[in-house]
């Protein structure tokens, strides 16, 4: 039976009018390296961030990584492959982050990482973001990646993303005065390093197991 599909695919293959874009890829690669050297000579920090951006964009596209799908697919299509992948990415990062943060803490330096105030603003903003990314078909990193892949619609998303960011920045004073608490909660400061690490990895592993079960369950539907 698989035979018929293969022959169908083979028949279609003969019709394709394939162009090889590899030479253009090499031109773009040369340009990227050229820009890196130019930046390194002028703003070294920018050259480093440029390299990070290239590696991340390349990886996002090659692995079809999608943070939006990690939240949306369990709801819409029953797939949890990306949910598990995002949990894994957070887990990997957590190990290195914890080491860097702990080293800073024992030297009496400020704790590095993204530690921000948490309150009703987090819940409202995250829910808005969740709705937005599903109807736009991509979040921030996804939109940038898809602009690079040639999606015209994502250029519109990006423009309105920027307008929305400016709008949020404009209203930020009101949110700060009325809603956003001052408190940033870093788990190890709140409950100690060992309990924080146990909770951190306990939750990540627990969610992974849950996602794995749910993913297996839905393929029977």
């Amino acid at each position, binding site marked *: 039976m698989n035979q018929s599909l293969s022959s169908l695919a083979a028949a279609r293959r003969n019709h394709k009018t*394939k162009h090889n*874009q*590899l030479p253009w890829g090499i031109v*773009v*690669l040369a340009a990227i390296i050229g820009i890196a050297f130019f930046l390194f000579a002028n703003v070294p920090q*920018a050259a480093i961030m440029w390299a990070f*951006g*290239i590696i*991340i*964009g390349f*990886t996002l*596209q*090659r692995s079809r*990584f999608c943070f939006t799908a990690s939240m949306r697919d369990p*709801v*819409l299509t029953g797939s949890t492959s990306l949910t598990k992948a995002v949990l894994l*990415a*957070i887990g990997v*990062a957590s190990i*290195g982050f914890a080491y*860097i943060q702990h080293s800073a803490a024992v030297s009496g330096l400020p704790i590095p*990482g*993204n530690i*921000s105030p948490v309150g009703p*603003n*987090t*819940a409202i*903003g995250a*829910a*808005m*973001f*969740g*709705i*937005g*990314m*599903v*109807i736009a*078909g991509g*979040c*921030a*990193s996804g*939109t*940038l990646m898809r*602009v*690079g892949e*040639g999606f015209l*619609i994502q250029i*519109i*998303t990006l423009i*309105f993303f*920027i307008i*929305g960011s400016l*709008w*949020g*920045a*404009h*209203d930020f004073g009101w*949110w700060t005065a009325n809603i956003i608490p001052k408190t940033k909660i*870093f788990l190890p400061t709140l409950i100690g390093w060992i309990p*924080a690490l146990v909770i951190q990895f306990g939750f990540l592993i627990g969610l992974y197991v849950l996602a794995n079960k749910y993913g297996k369950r839905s393929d029977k539907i």
Partner: protein
Amino acid sequence: MDNTSLYAKLLKNPWSYTTGAIILGMANITMLSITGSAWGVTTPFSYWGAWFYQILGGQPDTWFYFSQKTHAAAITAGFWNNGHSVSNIGIIFGAFLATLLASQFKIKKIKSKKQIFGAILGGLLMGYGARIAFGCNIGALFSGTASMSLHGWVFMLFIFIGAIIGSKLLTKYFI
């Protein structure tokens, strides 16, 4: 092209999600250790918006948001001195490069008015939401949670609730 060649494996066939997850996790760790700040995407969007608004004659620097120390310094310093602005452009070019090397680049035209409506509404919601929640899927969900900040975990719970609502809206109005 032989499907098992090195070219096919590395540049043509999609990598596994697991491969992507490990590289992204390692990249974020390296970024935090080298530059002192974890990966983020949306804060630069507010700067880009501010710079355009300044060109149009606006004065966003008088707003509370841009009078905060880090944001004030960032909009004065300009694009090339803002690390995440540069990495954002890098993401576009990295994805462009990956698509070309796979010989899979295609300009995808806009299909319908529904798509445009989704892009406008979705873009605005994400832009505004990320400002008040202190981050997006990257700055809050990925880097915030990995930083063991409670806001990352709260963000994870509520973005999932948002995604459920968004999915209902999508199947009802956007397909």
